[in-house]
């Protein structure tokens, strides 16, 4: 190997430099693992404190529970990168956002996963040339209206089909509203990072592996940030604060919408939590279920990492407002 490098002069030297960098990275992984092993007694002492143990359990739980869905999302995203020819999506999708956005919203029903998986998929759709408004609509609707979420909502609210219908309608409306607002006012520059098609060329299998690897580490890292944030909020903020807000109808909608952002529960489980919060009005619990899959601390971290911080600070508030308004309207009419 070194002989070949020598013969190739400059290129070979660059290859060797990269090899050294790769080896440094590998050494760093080993150092982190060994350091953690050396600190084990200290970690055990920490976990003897109930608050730290509570935090650690929630942190690990969110990360673990999200993993299968993240792996599914990453796999689909990598398959799109490897097997969907560039230029296909812009050809098959309608040009006008007014047509593409509702199509994308309804298409979300076909992806059985929770919110963590849909972020890498939306990014891949954008880098493959899909209209941003349509990809973002899909990003919001897929975790909110897929069959698993609908079934778990029906199980959590037995004999109340109107809750399932309200959740479906309100989520669809919110996703479409955000998509249309983005189509009208969104700036392409905000998505610059997602448009880059870096590393999408080459043999399909090689693209599959490198894309999946990249997306997994990237999304996984931000998932860790989000899980740590949600665990901190759940450990620090006592729930009794919310109980004082449950009296006023308007405040309770905002309180549960805010709680959905802070708790970062998987969209397949939030219906059970909503069902248990009987001191709140039905409409505010609907807001909890509409906001949760679209905006929460873990998703904001993922989106900031995937599309950029400037994107996330505009997109998250827009989505939050759309979801709350849509839930309030649908709840007022249906519930």
């Amino acid at each position, binding site marked *: *190997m070194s002989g*070949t*490098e020598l013969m190739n002069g400059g290129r070979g030297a660059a*290859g*060797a430099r*990269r090899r050294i960098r*790769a080896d440094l*990275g*590998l050494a760093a*992984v080993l150092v*982190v*693992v060994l350091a*953690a092993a050396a600190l*084990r007694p200290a970690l055990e002492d920490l*976990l003897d404190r*109930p608050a730290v*143990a*509570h935090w650690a*359990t*929630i*942190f*690990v*739980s*969110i*990360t673990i*529970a999200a*993993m*299968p869905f993240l*792996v599914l999302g990453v796999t689909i995203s990598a398959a799109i990168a490897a097997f969907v020819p560039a230029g296909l999506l812009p050809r098959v999708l309608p040009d006008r956002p007014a047509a593409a956005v509702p199509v994308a919203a309804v298409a979300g029903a076909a992806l059985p996963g929770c919110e963590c998986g849909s972020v890498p998929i939306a990014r891949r759709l954008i880098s493959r040339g899909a209209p941003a408004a349509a990809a973002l609509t899909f990003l919001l609707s897929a975790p909110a209206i897929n069959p698993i979420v609908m079934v778990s909502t029906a199980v959590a609210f037995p004999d109340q089909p109107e809750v399932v219908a309200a959740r479906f309608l309100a989520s669809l409306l919110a996703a479409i509203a955000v998509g249309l607002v983005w189509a009208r006012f969104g700036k392409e520059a905000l998505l610059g990072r997602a448009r880059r098609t*870096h*590393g999408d*060329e*080459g043999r399909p299998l*090689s693209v599959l*592996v*490198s894309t999946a*690897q*990249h997306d*997994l*580490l*990237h999304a*996984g*890292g931000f998932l*860790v*940030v989000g*899980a*740590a944030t949600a*665990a901190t909020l*759940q450990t620090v903020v006592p*729930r009794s604060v*919310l*109980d004082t807000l449950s009296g006023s109808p308007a405040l309770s909608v905002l309180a549960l919408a805010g709680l959905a952002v802070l708790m970062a529960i*998987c969209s397949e*489980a*939030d219906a*059970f*939590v909503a069902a*248990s*919060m009987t001191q709140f009005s039905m409409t505010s619990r609907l807001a909890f279920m509409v906001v949760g899959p679209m905006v929460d601390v873990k998703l904001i971290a993922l989106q900031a*990492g995937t599309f950029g911080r400037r994107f996330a600070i505009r997109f998250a508030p827009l989505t939050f407002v759309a979801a709350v308004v849509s839930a309030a309207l649908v709840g007022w009419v249906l519930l």
Partner: protein
Amino acid sequence: MTAAGGTISILVGAVLLRLTLTDTHLRYVRPELGPFLLVAGLAVVALGFATLVRALRETPTDVHGHGDLEHHHEHGIGVGWLLLAPIAALLLVAPPTLGAYGVGRTANIEIRAGHGVFKPLDPNAGPVSMTLLEYGQRSFERNGASFRGAPVELTGFVAEAEAGGFQLARYQIACCAADASPIVVKVVGTAGDRPVVDGWVRVTGNFRRPEGDVPRVSATSVAEIPAPRDPYE
């Protein structure tokens, strides 16, 4: 992508497999997620090995002029390093199941809601084992008429010890421990030492009228037990 990235993936996958094969995952997620964790773990390990193999082979390929690999080096691992945090935590010290700390902090389940009419229990069949949720729901349904004096057996951990009794609790989880809500049953009529907070106990006893929102059980025996395989309901 570097060898380090592949190694992190292998570690992530290995942790998922180890958690699931040792049943430790039951501390964090619903048992139904187990098979999905196994599949995800296998997939991630395979991905990590594929990356590692490519990383070790990369120099010769690069020399022969397949430029596409060069792009992948531009992606650092970046934020992916953070995945080592839960890995380190889980490989070395797996955090415990949720305990008494969270009982006062998370929303209690409103157990009055939910169930319809319960089938009456047989008073002569010996203690009936049931979840704390079912016990609470039976307590509020027709003022506990479905018990008909039958003894019950409840399993949970001690959330708070007080004079003459303690709070028995167990969490309901829908997906993972982040959505856990505790159910609390007040155990009255115990004699002897106060049980240890966060210790697991099996309480045999009889229905007692609830006190406000809290169901109560009048204990005939309290036995300390090891933590059950699945700590949640």
